[in-house]
Each structure stands twice: as C-alpha cells, then as structure tokens.
C-alpha cells in the first residue's frame, strides 16, 4: 500500500523512554503521523546523532530482546491504528547471517518495511538477498541512502520498487536550510524518478519540512527534535511539532 504524498513520519526508538511512555507517545503522535519509523534499540546506532543515540541506550535497558521490542512496537502501532516501518542496523543482528530471521521477525510484527541503514554501506553485496527476503516475507524493500551516494546505485534502488528511499540529510543542523540540502533532495528526486522519497535528519520545524518537500521529497521524518521536545515538555510538546508539520504539509497541498 502506497504512502501518502506528501507524508509526515515520526521516528521513535522502541521502548523509549520506557515501554509505556513509548506507547502513549506513539499514540499521541499518531493522529498527525502518516507512518512511524520505529527503531529497534541498538548497542551502537552508528549513523544516529547524540539525541537518538541516548534514546537507544536508555531503551536498551528497558527491553530484553528483539522479539520483545517488536511486539511492543506492533502493539503500540495497532492500538493507535498507525502504519510503521522498522529501522535497525544489520550489524546489531549478526550481519549477513542474521538477515533472514530479522526480516521474518519484522514482517511478523506488522511493519510495512524493514529499513537497514548500514545495509548498502557495510554489506553492499547483500542487496539482492535483502530484497528477496523482504519480498518473500511480504515486505516492500526500503533503502537508506546518504547525501553522498552513488547515482547509479540510487537508480538501481529505484528500479527495485521500494516502499521508500530514505535520504539522510545529516548533519545539516543549522537553523535555516542549507542550499546543498535542497539541491541534494532535488537531485535525488530526479535520480529515483517516482519512487517515494523520505528525507530526514535535522528537520525540526514546519518551515524546514516544507522546504524539503518543495525541493522534491515526498515525506519528511522527524526524530531527534521529537525526543528533545518530549524530554522538555512531554508528549504534548512532541505532538505539537508533529501536528504543526503535518498541518503545514496539508495546507500546502491545499
């Protein structure tokens, strides 16, 4: 099932700050969120920034196993009536030999897709096996690409009919959106043609979200800023941002 365009996605680390708070936060965000990106608590969330990393560290203390975490995600999402994809590093699951069972577990959780940020960087040879496993388990492939990425590989990924291609814009943490981010999004759009382009990292305001969408993304995902807001002002504060962004996107589509 296709994702809505434009779309807004909230990233949460599963079981953070605690399983129950996670669940109610997700619930609170769900009305304004088109789909969740849910991260399996990881020992070394390699490509994530400090805020998300600390959520992983905290969450790890709260859930014992992958299964437990996935069940929590599944439950929270279905209760909120929300779609979600699961994000995790393949490295955390034993690398290549852990791929198949991971895909099976994620598929079983009801996720639409499994996003493995380190797949193409650390295990580029595993691409076909991943797509194969995903499809065999009823998942659509999803890919993580950086803003420093080979064009021919972006084209190749687009050819694999993924649910989405996630473009990491890191570490553009400035207040206003740097020109390169816009041009990166625009170029990625061109390269992947009509594949679904999800852009993330460093988005923390409706203005930035709109700018990224206007540059050519189909959707934006916000993570660190939600975690920060939650810590500062609770679920209300986090939902405030999510809904403001969602509203801005809808208004724009008008």
């Amino acid at each position, binding site marked *: 099932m296709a994702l809505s365009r434009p779309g807004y996605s909230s990233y949460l680390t599963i079981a953070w700050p605690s399983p129950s708070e996670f669940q109610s936060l997700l619930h609170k965000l769900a009305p304004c969120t088109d789909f969740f990106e849910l991260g399996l608590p990881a020992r*070394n969330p*390699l*490509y994530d*920034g*400090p805020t998300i*990393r*600390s959520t992983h560290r905290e969450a790890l203390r709260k859930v014992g196993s992958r299964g437990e975490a996935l069940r929590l995600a599944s439950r929270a999402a279905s209760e909120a009536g929300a779609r979600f994809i699961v994000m995790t590093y393949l490295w955390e699951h034993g690398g290549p030999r852990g791929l198949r069972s991971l895909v099976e577990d994620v598929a079983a959780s009801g996720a639409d897709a499994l996003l493995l940020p380190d797949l*193409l*960087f*650390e295990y*580029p040879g595993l691409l076909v096996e991943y797509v194969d496993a995903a499809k065999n388990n009823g998942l659509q492939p999803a890919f993580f*690409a*950086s*803003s*420093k*990425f*080979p*064009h*021919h*590989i972006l084209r190749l990924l687009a050819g694999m009919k993924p649910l989405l291609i996630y473009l*990491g*814009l*890191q*570490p*553009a*943490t*400035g207040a206003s959106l*740097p*020109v*390169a*981010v816009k*041009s*990166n999004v625009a*170029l*990625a759009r061109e390269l992947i043609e009509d594949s679904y382009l999800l852009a993330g990292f460093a988005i923390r305001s409706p203005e930035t979200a709109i700018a990224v969408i206007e540059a050519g993304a189909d959707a934006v995902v916000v993570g660190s800023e939600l975690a920060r807001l939650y810590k500062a002002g609770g679920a209300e504060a986090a939902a405030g941002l999510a809904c403001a962004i969602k509203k801005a996107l809808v208004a724009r589509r008008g």
Partner: protein
Amino acid sequence: MDIPRRWYNIAADLPEPLPPLVDPPERDGRISLLASILPSRLIEDEYRLDRWVLIPHEVLEAYRKLGRPTPLARARGMEKQLGVDGRVRIYYKYEGVLPTGSHKLNTAIAQAYYASLDGASEVVTETGAGQWGLAVATAASLFSLKTTVFMTASSYERKAARRTLMAALGARVVPSPSRETRSGLEAIRAAGEGHPGSLGLAIAEAVEYTLADEHRRYLPGSVLEAVLMHQTVIGLEAEEQLAEEGVEPDVLVACVGGGSNFGGFTYPFLGARLRGEAYRKLRFVAAESSAAPKLTRGEYRYDGLDSSLMLPMAKMYTLGKDYVPPATHSAGLRYHGAAASLSLLKRMGYIEAVALPEDEVLAAARRFARSEGIIPAPESAHAVLAAELEARRLASRGGGVVVFNLSGHGLLDYEAMM
C-alpha cells in the same frame, strides 16, 4: 586552457556507497561538533549528492590570481635520466607554483571563503611542519580573516621559516600545548613545559579554541571528502591538458598523506573510468611513506580522524589513530589514515598502493631536481619515486605514459636535501 568551473564529487560515481562519518561509540556528538565548527558551506560540500559542484566565483577568482591553472609538464629530463626516453613519456602536474608552494591552497581558499560567508572573523587550524598552516594563513588573509594556528611545539622551534611566514601573513602562531585551552593546560600540567606537542593535541586545542567564540571556524587540511573534492581542480586541469597534448595516460601517480592531492589529481580520471566513459586500462598508484603505510599495511575499518577523538570517525585504511610514525622529513605523509573514498577504492582494487622508504625517496627527489629543475617537497618526492618505478615497468613492457602529481616544491624543506 582555463580553470575548471566545477569540482568533481566522486561519491556520485563510486561502485559502492561511501560509508558515512560516524560518532565514536564511546564519544557522542563529534558529527554535530564538526557541523558547528566547520564553515557551513564546507559541511554542505561534505554532504553533497551532486556529481559536479560549481566553484564559487570568489574562489575561482582567487585560483586565477594565485596561479591556476598550474602547468602540466613533460618530464623529458627524467625520461632521459631513467633511460626510458623514446619508450615512456612522463608528465607531471605541478602544484608548487601556488604561492605557498603546494596544493593545500586549493582547499584553504575555498574554506576561508566559506568561513567568510558565515560571517566568521577568524579561522583556526593546527599544523605540523607548516604547509597547511601557511596555506590557511594565506587564504585567510585573502578574505580578511584573522588566523590562529596551533603548531606543535617541536615544529614551532625547528620550522622557523614557515612559522615566520605565517606570522608575516598576519597569523597568530601558537606553540601547542599552549595555555590558551584546557587541553593545552592539562598537557602542560601533566608533562611539563618541555612538552614537544603532537598533532592530536594541536587538533584538540584548535577545536577547543574554535568553540570558544562563535565567530571562529575550524579548517581541516585533508581526509574529508570535501577537501578531496576541492582538490579535483588539479585533475580536471590535468585531464584537459593531457587532451591538448593528445596524450592518453597509462598510469597516474600521486602521494598520499590524508589523500587530498591523490584524490584531487586522480578522481576526475577515475570517475570517468567508473562511469565507463574512458580510461578503461588506466592504473592509479598511491605512493605512501613506509613511515605511515596505511594503504599497504593498515586495516580497513572505522577509526578516529584524530588521536584525541575530537573529530568523528571515518571508515578508512588506518594504522590506528594512536599510531606514532618514526621521524621523517615528509611531515605531510605521517597521517595514520586515508580518506574514506580513497580507502574504499583501494579496497575494491581500483587503486594500487606502494609504501616507499625515505632514503630512496630523497634520492629520487635529488634526481628529479637535477633532471627537471624543480626541487620537490619530500612528500611529493614519493610520487616522483613511484613514477620512476612505473616508468621503468612500462619501459620493460614496450612503453607508455606515466603522469604524476607534483604536489609541492621543497624550497622550505631544504634540510631534507642535506
């Protein structure tokens, strides 16, 4: 020939995606630190999807005024001296014409300009022997920025020439460890006043000093992909110059410290090769110092860009961030790792590497000086020796064309020639 209008970003054409910079597991926030101390436009260059990046007008102007395009020369004297003339043609691209005597200026100019775009008033860096510090001091003065350079205390004493020249350019050169930063003070407290300093410590001081004032920007001299990209003016010019000569190279050679002159010189060719457009049989040879043989003896893994883990980690060939190379004259090649893209391409077999011992390198430097009239920087002399070896090999197989990058002159490294 004119100066190229665009830099080339090889990430767009790599056979596999480039592993991104990451925070060390045990030390968060390095990437966001980087993003907040580097000029923001440099961060943009570091995270660029475009294959070609327009060179800003102000940078182009500075390139032109400071001597770009640099010459590509036929090394007839070297061919004769090697006894390969008639069979092997050797060419070299010469970056020593730039006012600080090396390619370092190509990125220093861009970075100083970027700092000025941020409204910065001061740029900060660290330097060992002084090549990078001098390039930064020069570039900064072009954009009316103050410069502070943390220079390892031992070099500060011994390399009076580059230190004085930096000062003449208006830079403040601070021996590291200094009393201006917490890291410096701690080092002095721990080891006493006679501390010789280290590059890791100087980096830590420079970063700390940068953070103390929002109008400061930290400028990195190599290893980052953005830096390699800025250096591609070298290769882009060389490509056009070879075409003008009607020459198709068989081997390209450059030396490797962090990889910026190597990448800058070879990537435009390598990119065309990766895209399947040209240079199907072209070989790429990286000449490293046997004092810091990361490409030939290092491991391919994530490692710190600096010993103190102030900066993020990159996936690269590394000897370990704490590796201390034996003393050599080639300060610029003592770095423990090689740029991520270069490491990836080496890993995949697109780039070959050779580690060369200093005595043979300096002998090659002397031969080159005598046959070609240019005294190479000790770093660049590694490329000279590797080019000699390649030329000999080609000669024994019927001939061919070797082109190498002469990244700098050795006028200020005369001790190496003694």
